[in-house]
């Protein structure tokens, strides 16, 4: 166990989500934009259409400044945020897939060095040589996608890894291919918005300006339709039953689906307008489309994270970082029984365990121990203290705050809170609370103080 970092103003899990959504937008853009640019550059070379180079130059500069470097930065950002928010979760991934990530690192290097070379050598080397650089960017970017999807999908469906502990079994898991092809399709939709933005910045009246907007939009529309079909007929049916249950539960707020569906519908309509009347495209509209896509991606990534609940790695590690399975070939052992028998306190190296019974029952110390246990068991998914709260008008934004949830369920006394803690495993998205009876009592004591702290805010803003 590690110290708990709750977050400041914003809950730690939301830092992860914000950085992840931005990373997905930028990194998916690099993959599909590399293929779209390759398509245009091939036409420039083989059909002698040098006018496409102006678009390619602008697009490459934008990709260099925004997508490649910011994508890589946000990728590192995901590591930093997940490390601070859920260290044992990221540790499991690292200790399984460090060399796969090492392989992906070469692809990152190819991407970032490649886009620098691509941009600075445009017009300075033979067009056919430059076309090779476009091929390298397209293949390298797809390589990063092929690797990271194995690690992402592992978290939801570790597959045979749970029995064998072999990295390859975890990497090529049941949702690997549907997620890979769904992402490969949808990334063309992101690229369409990007291409429209770049092309709309070009001089009006150029015949190829509208040509590029229309071609990119057709590609984006095809990607959206194929991606939706893959979701419906391949990805969703492959999801574990438990994940589908969680998706249908209140663990995923309605606003999340509204963001995803609303984003998809708006994007579909925008792309259709682009195909019919590409002349109407404006930079502000394209920027708006990118914003809509960001919100939809944010919703989709949040859903992907939440549908694994109550685990961070389905079937192996709970969201609050406890190992819940035996993997003998890797030396991992289920920690649940031991924690219930011996207590959680002894497993928290950052807490000095009480030496005597008198010390344990010292009220102030008891309360503090309760706080430590609540932080360890609840803070991964819930706002515990008020340091992760932001006041927006009359609304207080927190992430599923524990005190609010207890008030809503009428658990206000120490006894009722303790009873609630004992029954908490009944929700599909919650594991039973771990620890001895004394520890649960200490948790209840601390939680009661949170519940009593004051009247509930005017509105409970859910995220």
């Amino acid at each position: 166990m590690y110290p708990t970092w709750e977050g400041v103003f914003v809950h730690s899990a939301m830092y992860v989500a914000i950085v992840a959504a931005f990373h997905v937008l930028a990194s998916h853009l690099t993959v599909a934009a590399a293929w779209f640019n390759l398509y245009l550059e091939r036409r420039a070379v083989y059909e002698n259409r040098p006018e496409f180079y102006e678009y390619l130059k602008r697009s490459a500069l934008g990709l260099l400044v925004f997508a490649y470097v910011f994508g890589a930065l946000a990728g590192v950002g995901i590591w930093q945020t997940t490390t601070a928010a859920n260290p044992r979760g990221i540790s499991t991934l690292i200790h399984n897939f460090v060399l796969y990530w090492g392989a992906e690192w070469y692809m990152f290097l190819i991407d970032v060095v490649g886009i620098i070379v691509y941009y600075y050598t445009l017009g300075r080397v033979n067009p056919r040589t430059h076309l090779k650089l476009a091929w390298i960017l397209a293949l390298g970017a797809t390589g990063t996608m092929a690797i990271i999807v194995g690690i992402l999908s592992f978290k939801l469906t570790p597959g045979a890894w749970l029995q064998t502990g072999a990295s390859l079994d975890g990497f090529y898991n049941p949702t690997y291919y549907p997620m890979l092809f769904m992402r490969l399709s949808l990334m063309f939709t992101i690229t369409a918005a990007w291409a429209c933005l770049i092309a709309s910045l070009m001089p009006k009246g150029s015949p190829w300006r509208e040509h590029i907007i229309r071609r990119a939009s057709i590609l984006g529309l095809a990607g959206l339709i194929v991606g939706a079909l893959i979701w419906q007929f391949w990805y969703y049916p492959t999801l574990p039953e438990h994940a589908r249950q969680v998706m249908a539960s209140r663990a995923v707020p309605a606003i999340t689906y509204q963001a995803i569906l609303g984003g998809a519908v708006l994007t579909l309509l925008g792309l259709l307008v682009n195909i019919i009347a590409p002349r109407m495209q404006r930079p502000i509209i394209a920027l708006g489309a990118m914003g809509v896509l960001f919100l939809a991606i944010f919703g989709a990534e949040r859903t992907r994270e939440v549908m694994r609940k109550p685990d961070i790695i389905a079937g192996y590690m709970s969201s609050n970082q406890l190992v819940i399975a035996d993997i003998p070939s890797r030396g991992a052992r289920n920690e649940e029984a031991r924690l219930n028998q011996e207590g959680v306190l002894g497993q928290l190296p950052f807490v000095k365990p009480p030496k005597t019974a008198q010390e344990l029952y010292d009220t102030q110390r008891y309360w503090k121990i309760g706080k430590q246990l609540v932080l360890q068991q609840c803070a991964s998914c819930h706002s515990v203290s008020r340091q992760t709260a932001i006041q927006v008008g009359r609304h207080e934004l927190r992430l599923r705050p524990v005190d609010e949830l207890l008030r809503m369920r009428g658990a206000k006394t120490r006894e009722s809170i303790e009873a609630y803690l004992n029954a908490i495993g009944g929700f599909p998205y919650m594991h039973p609370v771990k620890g001895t009876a004394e520890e649960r009592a200490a948790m209840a004591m601390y939680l009661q103080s949170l519940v009593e702290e004051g009247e509930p805010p005017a509105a409970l803003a859910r995220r």
Partner: protein
Amino acid sequence: MEMLNTEMLRMMRDPLGAPLHPTLIQVLLVATFVLHIFFVTLALGAASFALWAFLRGNEWQRRLARVAARLAPNAVGLGVVTGIAPLLFVQTIYDPLWYAANTLTGFWSTLFIFVVMGGYSMAYLFYLKGSPQGRLLWASGLSIALILLAGWIMHVLANTQLYPEYWREWYAPNLEPDTRGVVFHAYNLPRVAFLLLVSSVLSLGVTLMLFAWYFRQRDDADYEYLTQVGNLGKRLALVSAPLLWITGIAWSFTQGIQFGLHIVMALAFTFIALLIREGFRHLDPLTGGVRALGFWLLSLLGIGVIRETIRATSVARYGYRVADYPFVWDWASVLVFALTTVVGVAVIAYLVLVLYDSGKGEVRPWAEKLGRVSIGMLGAWLALFILLGVRLYL
């Protein structure tokens, strides 16, 4: 207390173990750190020079400042990408240290990437729109400040790892946990001065000599300008050598002494400073760029080893040794990494060759062949990677 810390580190270690021998991971950690620190310090050096030259420089220095302003954001990008590898390896073999440091300093650890993004954006803005007339000089100053802050955050994370004996006190004094992660718990100013400030002057100096070496080969080379650039690079390196020694000695006798490493560190830093001083003194400013890079990378490797020795010695006090880290040979992982290394090196070599030859307008024929081969390898690698999992459906 020692037993308590030993037990704490053992309990925090990931139960899954490493996928290959931990000593190999340690070697990869040090080797990849060299590339990372070179680009990071280059970014800082280039950005600082651009600002200085725009404010105080003469004509040729302002001309060079434009190059430095272009170099800075690209070096930030490369610094981040090359930083991914040591980031991976450190958390594989030093997971208790890395994760404890990051959670104890969670706010800054999370803010780190936003700080780098800001530094990068400001550096790019300055390159695209800045001018010697004073336009957007604030952006340059802000970018330097943000890059320095990012370096400081990483420095604090690295230093927090070294003191497991204080972690409990930092996290929960009197059992009251501080879950904000806003406090900079451990730092060492001579170490920052050595690794960030003085090293940035050296990385800049070496790169200026490489610049002179490369552009002297062009038909339209401006020899007077290139000689000035090469001389400046050499002078910066020579001036940095004693500064490197002074800050190195200070680092040895403030932090090194805590782990009984001060004598070894002082000797090593003296050797490195002498190597740079003597090595650079005999280099020709116009033609010595490649050898200058060699000297500096070799020195950075030595510095990386010292840095790693401090960490290993610190945790050895509590019985934590990298060589003892549990591991299971995961041959699939090893094969994936080895295969990708071959493909990656071939492709990157081709990219660098194209960039190198682009100044002459034509890429050498054998490089073109390498390009075809490397694209084929990359395509085959991708196809193999995607198809390998089809066995799931068989």
